[in-house]
Every structure is written in C-alpha cells, then in structure tokens.
C-alpha cells in the first residue's frame, strides 16, 4: 500500500517528455526487446533464408520459422499458414487479388464495406475495372455493418467477403465471428484486415472462422516493412494466385528474399503482444476511458465517433463541434494525434470513414483520433486532455459557428455559400 502511494507520488512529479505520441494507430515504436532480438540478423546472422546448402542460410531459415510459429500462436493458426509480406497493404492486395484470380471461374463478386482501409477499397476498385463486381456495404451509425445487409448482398457469384476486424480511424470492431459463420455457411471465403486488432485484442482465426487475415508488424511494436497474410490450409484449403512472381518463396505465394531481421522482429513482437495482451489492453482501456471522461467533463458538445462498446481498448475518436481539426492540431502541436479534417489529408477530403457514419461532414472536419499505446502514461493523458480543453475553448471563442449555435441558429438548416469551395 505504502509502496503504491510512493509510486503514484513519484509518477505525478515525473516531468512529461514532449512531444507526446498518441497516434499508435499510425505506427508504433519498436519495442526494445524486439530490436534486441532483431540485431544479430543484420550483421552476424545475415544469411538468406532460402540458402539451403550452408549454415548461414540454415540459421536464417530457423529464425524465420521461429517467427512464423510465434505469429501463428498469436492468432491460433498453424505456422504453415503464415505468408510473410512487405506489409499489410501487400497482404490485402495478395488476399483479394489472389482469391479473385484463383476463383474467377467460380464467380466474380466480392463484398466489402465502405469503411475499409484504402488498401482494400482501392484493390477492389481495380478489380472492378477488370470485370469483377464489388458490393461496398454501408455501415450503421455506430460504424458496424448490418449482417442482414451482408446476407442480402450474397449471391451465386460471390467468392470473397473482405471486412476488417477493427477500423484504423474509429477503432470500431466488426462482428467478425458472425460474418465468419455466414461466409462458412455459404461456402464463401472470408478475408479480414486484422492490422489494428491483432496483438491488441483476442483474435483467433478458428474461433472467428477467418480464411485469410492481414497483419502488420509495425502496428504491434515491431519494425516497419514487414507484414503477413494468414492463409487457411484446411477446411477449406485456400488457394491464391501470387501477385509477385519469382523464386517461389513462401510456397510460391510470395516470391522475394525474406526480410529476416524484420520477420524475427515481427515474431518477437507477436510473442510479446500475446503474453502481455490481457494486462496491456486493460491498462489502455482504463486510460482511454479516463481520457474520454475527462474530456466530457471539461467540454460540452463533443461527440464520440463510432460505437464505444465495440471498440479497440486503445482507441478514441472524438469530434469537437464548431472547431476545425487542423486548427485544433496546430494548437496542440506538442501532441501527435490525427484528424479526419480535409486539411490534414493528402486528398483534401474529410475522412470517408467518418462521413460513412452519417454524422455530417462538419463533424468529420472537427474530429481527432487518439491512439494510446504501450508507453502512454496517465500524466500524458492528463496533459493532452487539459491542453485540448484550453485550445478547443479558445477556438470556439473565435468560431462563427459556435456563436451562431449559441444564438440558437440551427446550423444544419442555414444556407451556406458553398460555391467554389
């Protein structure tokens, strides 16, 4: 008891290091334990895992196979079902294009959702140009798809359902087990982009009846530039047409010399996530809830985007009404977070994920995504909440929308001059 009090007192006096990183959905730092595991494979153990006739190759191959096992264990798969890639974008491409080509004779219809990552959406769009038909399911207000919509979309020609486990912007978790059951019953393959979920919440490919799953190392405290695709081998055995041809690595599904240090790091990262998931997710959920409560206590008219119940424990996405996201980010420039504002995106369009929730573009422009992670502290959360409160208040004082709303004007029925903007 005494020691706990001392620890807390000590924590409170600890200086906060700025800038604060609260954008763990974008990427995560490499865990020092992961880096340590990787180090030998850059220099002394530099062999090519495909070299079959000397110890340099054997050592590398052994390291890769260990990582494959570590990763398989995280998701309840068999090591032989893991295909290493350059990252989750490649995994999504391989899963979708690989199935589309391989099962072309069976059908040409794919079902996905409007809130998927661009790696899935744009892959589907390309396939549409090649004669495939794609259904983009709308989401409900809470960000989840409707299972009835899914059932209604399935036809004779449907070969693949690709729905992400958890969304990268709003952290909303889709009903994956239910989708898996529907897919299985209809004999349709089911791919899920599990990048944001794997390592953070329980994800078991057999419990969820997933046939293909995309994973990324750098979202789970591993290095950038390495990902994986889980490809089911039994019941059913999923076949994929490769998109990269070459030396026949990864059982022909993905040619190219393996990124051995990256893969070793991925394996170690997966192992750590598996071991620490329960305590880590509990800690982050408490911190996230604390951040949410604090913001709600200190500010009015703030709105959570997406379901709070079906949500990653370390995600919070909030719209601060009457304040534009980029100006908000400018005011908290010692805190790294993301916004759904058009001004912060490369496309200059507000977040399509938030737009899909139907809350209105103005709330998309006003949104901030918080991603908490392994090194987020309560002190950081306090700092971020207090700083945001003061910046939001200041910006609202200079917001014509806030003024109008306080005068009782209904902003949604006002005539705005939108021409040319």
């Amino acid at each position, binding site marked *: 008891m005494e020691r706990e009090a001392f620890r807390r007192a000590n924590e409170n006096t600890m200086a906060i290091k700025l800038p604060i990183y609260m954008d763990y959905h974008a990427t995560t730092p490499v865990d020092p334990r992961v880096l340590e595991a990787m180090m030998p494979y850059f220099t002394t153990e530099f062999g090519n895992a495909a070299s079959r006739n000397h110890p340099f190759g054997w050592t590398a191959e052994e390291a890769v196979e260990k990582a494959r096992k570590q990763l398989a264990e995280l998701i309840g798969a068999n090591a032989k079902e893991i295909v290493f890639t350059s990252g989750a974008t490649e995994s999504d491409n391989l899963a979708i294009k690989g199935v589309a080509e391989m099962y072309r004779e069976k059908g040409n219809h794919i079902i996905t959702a409007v809130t998927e990552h661009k790696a899935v959406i744009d892959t589907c769009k390309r396939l549409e140009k090649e004669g495939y038909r794609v259904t983009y399911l709308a989401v409900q207000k809470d960000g989840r798809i409707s299972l009835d919509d899914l059932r209604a979309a399935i036809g004779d020609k449907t070969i693949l359902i690709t729905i992400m486990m958890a969304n990268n912007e709003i952290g909303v978790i889709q009903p994956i087990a239910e989708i898996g059951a529907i897919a299985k019953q209809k004999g349709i393959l089911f791919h899920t982009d599990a990048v944001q979920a794997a390592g953070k919440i329980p994800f078991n490919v057999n419990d969820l009846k997933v046939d293909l799953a995309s994973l990324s190392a750098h979202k789970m405290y591993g290095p950038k530039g390495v990902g994986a695709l889980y490809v089911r081998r039994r019941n059913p055995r999923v076949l994929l047409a490769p998109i990269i041809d070459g030396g026949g690595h990864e059982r022909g599904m993905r040619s190219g010399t393996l990124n051995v240090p990256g893969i070793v790091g991925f394996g170690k990262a997966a192992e750590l996530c598996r071991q620490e998931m329960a305590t880590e997710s509990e800690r982050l959920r408490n911190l996230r809830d604390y951040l949410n409560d604090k913001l709600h206590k200190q500010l009015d008219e703030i709105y959570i985007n997406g379901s709070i119940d079906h949500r990653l424990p370390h995600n919070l996405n909030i719209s601060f009404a*009457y*304040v*534009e996201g*980029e*100006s908000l980010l*400018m*005011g908290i420039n010692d805190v790294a977070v993301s916004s759904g*504002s*058009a*001004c*912060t995106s490369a496309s*200059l369009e*507000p977040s399509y994920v938030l737009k899909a929730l139907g809350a*209105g*573009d*103005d709330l998309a*422009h006003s949104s901030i995504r918080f991603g908490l992670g392994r090194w987020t502290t309560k002190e950081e959360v306090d700092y971020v909440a207090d700083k945001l409160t003061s910046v939001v208040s200041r910006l609202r*004082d*200079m*917001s*014509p*929308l*806030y*003024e109008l709303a306080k005068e009782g004007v209904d*902003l949604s029925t006002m005539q*705005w*001059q*939108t021409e*040319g*903007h």
Partner: protein
Amino acid sequence: MAYSNKVIDHYENPRNVGSLPKDDVNVGTGLVGAPECGDVMKLQVKVNPQTGIIDDAKFKTFGCGSAIASSSLATEWLKGKTVDEALAIKNTDIVNELSLPPVKIHCSVLAEDAIKAAISDYKKKQTADGKKAETVAQPTA
C-alpha cells in the same frame, strides 16, 4: 504542414477577434464558406459615416490555421481604409504576405470573398437607409 511564422503568429495571437452589432447601419457583415467544406468566415467592418473610412473590423473563423490567419490579416488591413480601398485587397496579397502554400490558397480566396461580402452588406444597408432618408426628405424639399 509547415506554416510560415506569420501564419503561426496570427493563429496564436489573432487580431480583432469578435463581433460588431450586425444591425448597426454602419456595420457590414460577410459570412462566407460552409461547415461541410471545413471553413466558415465571418468578417465585419464598421464604417465611420463622416469620413467613409473603416474604423473597426472584426472576424470569427471556423477553419484551419491559414483560414484564421487570412481573416485576421484581412481585419488588420481593413482598418483605416476607405470602402473602395478595401475592395482593392486581393487574395494574392494575402497569399504573399502569409507565404501560403498552394493547397491553402482557397483560404485567401475565402478572406477576399468575406471582405467583398461585408462591404456589399454595408453598401446595401446604406442604399436602403438612403432611400428611406430620401422618402422622408422629399415632402420638405
């Protein structure tokens, strides 16, 4: 997005934030942009009826840092200008002064639109008021 020091300065210390009485006959109000586009500017001028010079200007902006800076700068420039001089302010002047990057040029356009809308509102009020004055004045003439 790396901002120029001038944009940061206007963002951190915005000039002339606030509102003028919009029903005042000597106040012109411009409200441009739209919430769904991510920027709305309200810009107001108060013209001295004796001299015809803008002696106060205020703004409120919902928008990114460049939009806030563009409208803040506009209010600075408006003060002390005649209505005609105010209409001569071009968005390119704002772009140059704040070193706005190409993706932020629309913020300066919006500020120019806001100036024009405010002046136009002021002029409309003057004509309406003038007409009223005329009709009142006629019988005694």
